[in-house]
């Protein structure tokens, strides 16, 4: 059953509308991948769900965000604040900058459980150390008193994860949690996140641009392009039979282990900026298969037997 | 041309408009003082000394019966030319020193940084007074003293800019093309470093006007009968009860000018989005 249902979400910043008609749902015990290149609106979606659009001067213009039966788009800030960190937690993109550099790590984790669970200082500390140990952080007792700069990037990201888990949330939004990390560390953090969802039955919204990570970790995938949903389906289906030309191209952009030389093509053109969204299907200028209608008419996200797609070709193979 | 268009753009913001209007007025006064001033600034009329503002003398007369408004208009010329010349010299010298220190680094940088940091910690007024004691009084000395008093600021700022820019990829890329130091410094570093320095220079011009006035208050600076706002206030303190306007109007002229400079500078900083690059000062 869906914990989070986003329907027709539109977001405006000033007088531009970077997000337009985003719909998806996230379920408990499932990792939903939100995939897209820069400017696709992944992080904005996360901020909208967290109710933090105001921080960057944005606002929800259309649609609804239903979390556990509660409409978030009309929720007042004090109520939202009690939700944030408690029921919806964030694992941010850059662990290097997400921790307050002058506050001890332990205190930063403790803060969440003290704030939302009303724990005493020692109780919060015990809980934090327990969480750190669960995340396989060595020597958790000592590190509880350490400062962020004393830790490696991988460790910091584990601390950020511990912070997210501190109040036992139901939904975690992980915004590119491994982009800033080295390859070997990235693999381990992804593994930890996958294990968490499996063990705790959480709903996880994994935002990434890396199709490898998607293939490795996600159960279902939403592909975003230029502020709209292009395609949504199970991971298996997306990779086996992508229905949107963009999805197919995106997968083809990554060299597979046996990719023959000279066959990596990429997608011509550039991802449009929010000020230069083309009319019609926003992918059409880069789409090799675009037909006339794509230039003028916005394709509607259509639910098919399995998954949905916003394309006039509707998955007809090339 | 695009710079002019840019300035025009800044001048159309609410803050920019008010401050730009005041600045233009002050600059016009400075440029066309002899035509704008209703009277000769030096003509004395001792029997008519210390008259309060009236229809003939909008700002009253000073202790020699000279028209105060004419003197304030001419004073704009003195104050602005001293401040602008001094800051101009300071900016050019500071940029040279700062660029060299930031670009070449090493022992030269260390020495420059140490001296600059130390002098920066001393109040400008003390540095200026110290220098005037060494090089003597007079307009040129005041200009040099003010220029040196602010040198540290521009050296620091330029050095910080150059240090930051030096690690920009395009600088490395240019070196990789086989560019010499001169090309890197004059074609890439300075053009990119100059904006914050110019803006800081503009803001410092406001401070320099105050410094010039303070030196004038101590009896240093423009030689009589040349009017300067600071010297006018200095002699005005003695008349504070008989003729308070003698000290009030020049003070107000300074306050209005300096506030306008600050507001316009602020508007520029916001428009150029260089607040972070000015942080060091």
């Amino acid at each position, binding site marked *: 059953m869906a914990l989070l249902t986003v329907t027709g979400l539109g977001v405006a910043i000033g007088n531009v509308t970077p997000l337009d008609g985003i719909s998806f749902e996230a379920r408990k015990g499932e990792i939903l991948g939100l995939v897209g290149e820069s400017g696709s609106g992944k992080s904005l979606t996360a901020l909208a769900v967290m109710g933090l659009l105001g921080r960057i001067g944005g606002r929800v213009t259309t649609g609804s965000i239903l979390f556990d039966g509660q409409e978030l788009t009309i929720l007042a800030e004090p109520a939202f604040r009690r939700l944030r960190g408690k029921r919806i937690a964030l694992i941010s993109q850059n662990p290097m900058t997400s921790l307050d550099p002058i506050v001890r790590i332990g205190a930063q984790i403790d803060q969440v459980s003290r704030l939302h669970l009303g724990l005493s200082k020692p109780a919060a500390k015990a809980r934090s150390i327990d969480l750190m140990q669960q995340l396989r952080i060595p020597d958790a007792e000592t590190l509880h008193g350490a400062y962020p700069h004393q830790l490696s990037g991988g460790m910091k990201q584990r601390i950020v994860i511990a912070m997210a888990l501190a109040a036992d949330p139901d939904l975690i939004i992980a915004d590119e949690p491994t982009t800033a990390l080295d390859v070997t560390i990235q693999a381990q953090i992804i593994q930890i996140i996958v294990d968490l969802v499996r063990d705790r039955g959480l709903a996880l919204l994994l935002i990434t641009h890396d199709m490898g990570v998607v293939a490795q970790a996600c159960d279902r995938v939403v592909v975003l392009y230029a502020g709209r949903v292009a395609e949504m389906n199970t991971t298996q289906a997306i990779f086996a039979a992508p229905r949107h030309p963009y999805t197919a191209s995106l997968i083809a952009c990554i060299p597979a282990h046996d990719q023959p030389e000279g066959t990596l093509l990429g997608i011509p053109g550039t991802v449009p900026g929010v000020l230069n969204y083309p009319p019609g299907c926003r992918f059409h200028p880069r789409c090799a298969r675009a037909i006339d209608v794509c230039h003028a008419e916005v394709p509607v996200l259509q639910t098919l037997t399995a998954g949905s797609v916003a394309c006039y070709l509707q998955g007809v193979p090339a | 041309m695009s710079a002019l268009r840019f300035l025009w753009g800044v001048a159309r913001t609410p803050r920019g408009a008010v401050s730009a209007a005041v600045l233009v007025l002050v600059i016009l006064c400075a440029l066309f003082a002899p035509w704008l001033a209703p009277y000769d600034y*030096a003509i*004395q009329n*001792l*029997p008519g*000394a210390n008259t309060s503002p009236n229809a003939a003398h909008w700002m009253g007369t000073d*202790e*020699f019966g000279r028209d105060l408004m004419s003197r304030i208009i001419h004073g704009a010329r003195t104050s602005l030319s001293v401040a602008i010349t001094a800051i101009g010299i300071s900016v050019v010298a500071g940029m040279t020193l700062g660029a060299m220190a930031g670009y070449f680094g090493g022992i030269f940088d260390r020495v420059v940084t140490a001296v600059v940091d130390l002098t920066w910690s001393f109040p400008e007024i003390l540095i200026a007074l110290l220098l005037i004691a060494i090089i*003597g*009084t*007079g307009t040129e000395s005041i200009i040099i003293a003010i220029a040196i008093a602010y040198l540290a600021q521009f050296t620091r700022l330029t050095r910080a800019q150059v240090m930051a820019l030096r690690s920009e990829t395009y600088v490395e890329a240019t070196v990789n093309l086989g560019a010499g130091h001169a090309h890197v410094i004059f074609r890439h570093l300075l053009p990119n470093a100059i904006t914050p320095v110019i803006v800081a220079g503009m803001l410092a011009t406001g401070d320099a006007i105050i410094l010039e006035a303070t030196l004038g208050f*101590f*009896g*240093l600076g423009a*030689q*009589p*009968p040349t009017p300067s706002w600071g010297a006018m206030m*200095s*002699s005005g*303190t*003695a*008349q*504070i*009860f*008989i003729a308070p306007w003698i000290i009030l109007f020049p003070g107000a002229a300074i306050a209005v000018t300096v506030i306008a400079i600050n507001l316009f500078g602020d508007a520029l900083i916001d428009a150029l989005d260089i607040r972070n690059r000015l942080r060091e000062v």
Partner: protein
Amino acid sequence: MKIFARRLLAGALLSSTFLMSGFAAVAQDVTMVLPAREVGAPTYDPIRGTKLNVATTLIYDRMMLQDADQSFHGQLATEWSVTEDGMEWVFKLRPGVSFHDGEPFNAATIAWWIPKFAGTENAFMTEAIASVEIIDDLTVKFTMKNPDPNLLSNMATTFMGVPSPKAYDAMGDGYGVTGAVGTGPFKLESFTVGQETVLVRNDAYTSGSALSENKGPAHIARLTFREIADDSTAFLELKTGGVDMLLSVPADFRTTMEAEAGLTVVTMPGRELFYMPINTTVAPFDDIKVRQAAALAVNQPEILANLYGGIGAVADTFLTAALLEGKVKDELRISYDPDRAKALLDEAGWVAAADGTRSKDGTPMTVKLWTQNGTEFRRITEVIQAQLAAVGITAEITVLDPASINDEYKKMTEHQLAVRSYSYENADILDWFFSAERLGYPNVSMWTDAVAEELRIKAMTGSRTWDERVVNFTAYHEYVLTQFVFAPIYQPVQSYAFTTDALMVPEVIRSTRVQSQTFLDIMVK
């Protein structure tokens, strides 16, 4: 570092006592502001000090005091006599006087004291004294090298306050700074240079002179002298009751203060004189006609009327009006005469152009006019600049600080005109400023003239009696005037002001200025 730390600590304690003392105002406490020109006097050592403030006259008594009419009245000396030839002086000393430190004052004190002047800047005061002889405990005899009719006048100056020999020798270089011990009506309690001096009453005092009603201890128990450089600040302090008396009132504030209820402003004849020295060695002023023209271009009445509201007097000689030597022949007085000035310039070959500026052989008549920092100087100078311009002389003003001005003079090269003032009440100021032995500074006019030197030396060392001295100095003064080596400008008055609710100040000041004799009589309400 230890010594330094201790000094710092002491300083901190000192200043915190200041902070405290403000809260505990005691009756009979009086605060006064020193005259502006006395600000910054570094020491209370009368022998070595060159700049002393009025508080010095309260710490030290002098042998005698001089009244406004130039008559002398004994203080530490009760009577004195001089031989006909002026070569021997005998002084009887006041009995029963002791210093603040308990040391007795007697003939031995004088015998110790006079030789102390040798080698100091004040040596000229006692230069004529060959030896001091103790006749008895309270009688001394001076044997002179040459007659010095000016001796009594010297002995009445602040520089000849008598310090305690014991304290003086014990404190060495620190004397006058860390302490000062005299026989005067007040003892020095604390002294912060440039800031303030606190004096407390000498309750054992009995040496009041004939110039005071009160011969015993002062009425004021505790007297603070503050040094405030800024005139307006000083005035505001008086107005708001922060101080009780200003010992000098700047001309600018006189009318304002007179209008102020609760303030009394008293004006008395001045001792100061503003003048414009002319460097006789630099063209065009090497030509006496040009010098005369410049001197005649100065419009003294205009300055008196407009800058000073008619208070004070024009100066038309080099000496203040009170001095007998200033009574010169009327035709020698230098007074404003623009037509004559222009005629002289024409004669000298400086031709006026249509706009009034003059030039000679293509050289424009542009001269340097120096002045020193300070509102009053700048103001007079600006007016003089305009007055010179009126006869066709373009003067460019340079404002210098007093130290620089003297440095520049010592270079003896460039200077031409300046606006200066002196404050002194003896004709030997002529010797100071015009002696050929002191070119550069103080002989700013750079004047050497055989006739003048002869007259000067005669006046300085060739007079046996006071009257003879007056005659000789008048002759010298008259010659100086004929050479136009300066232009006289203005003689200010002295003013002092006090709050009527706090103080009662004697109406008649028995001296040329407010000094110890007046302070003894000031009453606290």
